[in-house]
C-alpha cells in the first residue's frame, strides 16, 4: 500500500516535469540563443558569455525594420481584435438571444465553421487581387480586414458559448427594468461576459500577431508585421540565427503581458449568485 501511494505521485510528477521540459526546451533554447554570439551558437556552446549584441542589432540596426514591424503588428492586432470582439459579441447576442428561426442559427454557424476550416493561404491570393483593385494592398486596412475575417468564426463560436451562459432571465429582467437592447448589452450582458471577452480577445490577438502567410501576401516593407520581420533574418546566403532568436524573444512579450493583465478578468464564478 505504502509503496503504491509513493510511486504514484512520483511517477505523475516525473511525467509532468518531462512534459514541461519538452514544451519549454525550444523556448529556453531560443532565449539562450538570443544572448549568444553567432559563433557560440554555431559551436553549440552551453556555457557562454551573454551578449546583447543581437538585441542591439534587431532594435537599432540600420538595416533592421523590426521596430516598424512591431508597430505594424501592434496596430493590426489591436484593431482586428477590437473589430472581431465587437462584431462577434453583437452577432452572438443576436443569434442566441433575439429569437431567430432555428435554421438561420444553424446555417450561419455551420457556414462559419466551414469558413474557419479553409486554410487562410487559399484565400490570400484572391484577397491580394481584390485588395489591389480597390487600393487596399500594402495598407493596414487590408491586413486588418483579412485578420478580422480569419478570426471572426472562432470568436463567434466562443462568444456564443459565453453569451448562452448568461441566463435568459437576466436579459428579460433588464428589459422589464426599462433597458432596450443596446443598454441590455452594455449594462448586463457585457459586464457578465467580460472574462469571455478577455479570453477570446487574447486568442484573436495572438492569432493576428502570429499570422504569417496572409500578411506576407498583402503587405510590403512599410506594413510588414513581426513574423515577416523574423522571417527576414533567414536570407539566401546566411541565416542570422541569433538575431532571429532575439526578434522571436521580443515578439513574445506582448502576448505575455496580455496574459498577465487579463488573468484577473478570467475568473470563474463571476455569475454565481445570479440564479440559483
Amino acid at each position: 500500500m505504502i509503496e503504491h501511494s509513493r510511486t504514484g505521485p512520483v511517477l505523475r510528477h516525473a511525467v509532468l516535469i518531462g512534459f514541461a521540459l519538452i514544451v519549454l526546451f525550444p523556448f529556453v533554447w531560443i532565449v539562450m540563443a538570443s544572448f549568444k554570439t553567432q559563433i557560440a551558437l554555431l559551436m553549440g556552446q552551453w556555457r557562454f558569455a551573454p551578449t546583447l549584441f543581437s538585441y542591439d542589432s534587431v532594435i537599432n540596426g540600420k538595416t533592421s525594420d523590426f521596430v516598424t514591424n512591431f508597430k505594424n503588428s501592434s496596430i493590426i492586432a489591436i484593431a482586428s481584435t477590437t473589430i472581431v470582439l465587437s462584431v462577434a459579441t453583437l452577432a452572438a447576442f443576436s443569434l442566441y438571444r433575439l429569437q431567430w428561426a432555428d435554421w438561420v442559427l444553424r446555417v450561419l454557424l455551420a457556414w462559419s465553421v466551414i469558413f474557419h476550416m479553409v486554410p487562410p493561404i487559399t484565400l490570400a491570393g484572391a484577397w491580394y487581387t481584390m485588395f489591389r483593385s480597390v487600393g487596399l494592398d500594402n495598407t493596414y486596412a487590408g491586413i486588418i480586414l483579412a485578420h478580422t475575417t480569419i478570426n471572426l468564426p472562432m470568436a463567434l463560436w466562443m462568444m456564443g458559448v459565453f453569451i448562452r451562459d448568461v441566463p435568459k432571465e437576466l436579459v428579460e429582467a433588464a428589459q422589464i427594468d426599462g433597458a432596450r437592447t443596446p443598454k441590455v448589452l452594455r449594462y448586463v450582458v457585457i459586464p457578465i461576459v467580460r472574462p469571455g471577452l478577455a479570453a477570446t480577445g487574447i486568442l484573436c490577438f495572438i492569432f493576428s500577431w502570429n499570422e504569417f502567410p496572409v500578411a506576407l501576401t498583402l503587405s510590403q516593407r512599410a506594413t510588414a508585421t513581426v513574423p515577416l520581420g523574423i522571417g527576414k533574418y533567414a536570407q539566401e546566403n546566411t541565416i542570422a540565427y541569433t538575431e532571429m532568436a532575439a526578434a522571436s524573444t521580443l515578439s513574445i512579450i506582448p502576448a505575455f503581458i496580455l496574459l498577465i493583465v487579463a488573468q484577473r478578468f478570467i475568473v470563474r464564478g463571476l455569475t454565481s449568485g445570479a440564479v440559483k
Partner: protein
Amino acid sequence: MATVELKGVSKRFGAVEVIHSVDLSIREGEFLVLVGPSGCGKSTLLRMISGLETISSGDLFIGGKRVNDVPARDRGISMVFQSYALYPHMTSAQNMSFALKLAGKSPDEQAERIKPAAGVLGLGDYLDRFPRELSGGQRQRVAMGRAIVREPEVFLFDEPLSNLDAKLRVRMRAELKELHQKLKTTTVYVTHDQIEAMTLADRIVVLRDGVIEQVGAPLELYDNPANRFVGSFLGSPAMNFFELSIPDGTPDRARFADGDSLQLPRELGGRSSVTVGVRPESLELVSEAGDGTISAEVAVIEPTGSETELFLRKGKDQIIASFRDRIDVRPGEIVHLEANPAKYHLFDTTTELAI
C-alpha cells in the same frame, strides 16, 4: 394600481396552441393567483401579461389601455422571477436602483427611492453586498425590492418561492402577503403549489392545458369545485373520488362494486352512475359497518404529529383519510368510514362537471 383585463387571449407556438382564448378580469389591488400543474400554461400567460411573450390573438388591457403592442418596459409592470434573476455584477442597491438609473434618475434620487423598499424588506445591512454573498431568502428579498422600487401598476410573480427550502418558503409567503396588504398593488402570482395559492390569493384561477377551469375565492373553490379536476387539484391530501352506480329505483343512493352504498344528499333521477368526491378530512372512523359506511383495508399509516393520515384500499380504489385525533389501527385491518352526505361533491362520471 391598475386593472388587468384579458379578452380572448390565445398563444400559439407554431401550430400548437398553448393558451386557448382566455378571458379574465383582474381587479384593482387584487392578489390573483394562477395555479395549475406544470405545462398548463400559467407561466406563459404571465409572460404574455409582462410583455416578454407576444400575444397571438385577443386583447390585453392594463389600466384600461390596450397593451398588446407595448413593450415590457412601458407596461408599468414589475416581475419577480423564479430564479431571482439578480444582476450578478451589481450590489443589492445597484440591482434595486437599476431601473431608476435607466430612467435617468440622479444617484441621490436613486438612493432615496430604494431606502423605503430596503426598510420594508429588512435589507438595510445588505445593500452593499453582491448576490453571491446573500442567502436564498435575502436574494429573494432583493428581487422583490427591485420590483417594488419601480412603483409598478402591477406586480408579476413567477413561482418566486419555489427555490427556497420549506421553512423559508412559509416565512416568505407570509412576508409576501403582508407586503401586499401594505402596498395594495395589483398582483398576478403564478405557482404550482396549491397551498401557496390558497393562502395568498384573493382569487384563484385554476388552469389546465391552457384553459381556465375555474375562477373564485380560495374557499369557494375548495368548497364548490366546478369539476373533478379543480376538486382534485386543490387540497392536500387530495380529494377521494369514487365512481359509483345508481341502482334503478333508488335515485338517492349510490353503490360501490363490493355492495357498500352511500346516501346521496339529493335524488339524482335519470342517472345510472355518479362520481362522488369526499375530502380526506370529511371522513370519520366508525366502529361498525352500517348504512352509508365505507369499508376499506388499511395500507399505510402516516402520523404527522398534528394529524394522522390513513391510506386505505377498497377494491381497486385508493382512499386517503386524515384525522386530527390519534388513532389506533394497524396495516391490514378492515376499518369503516363515514362522511356527512352534505360534504359529498357530486360529479358527472363522463363530463366530470359538478352536478
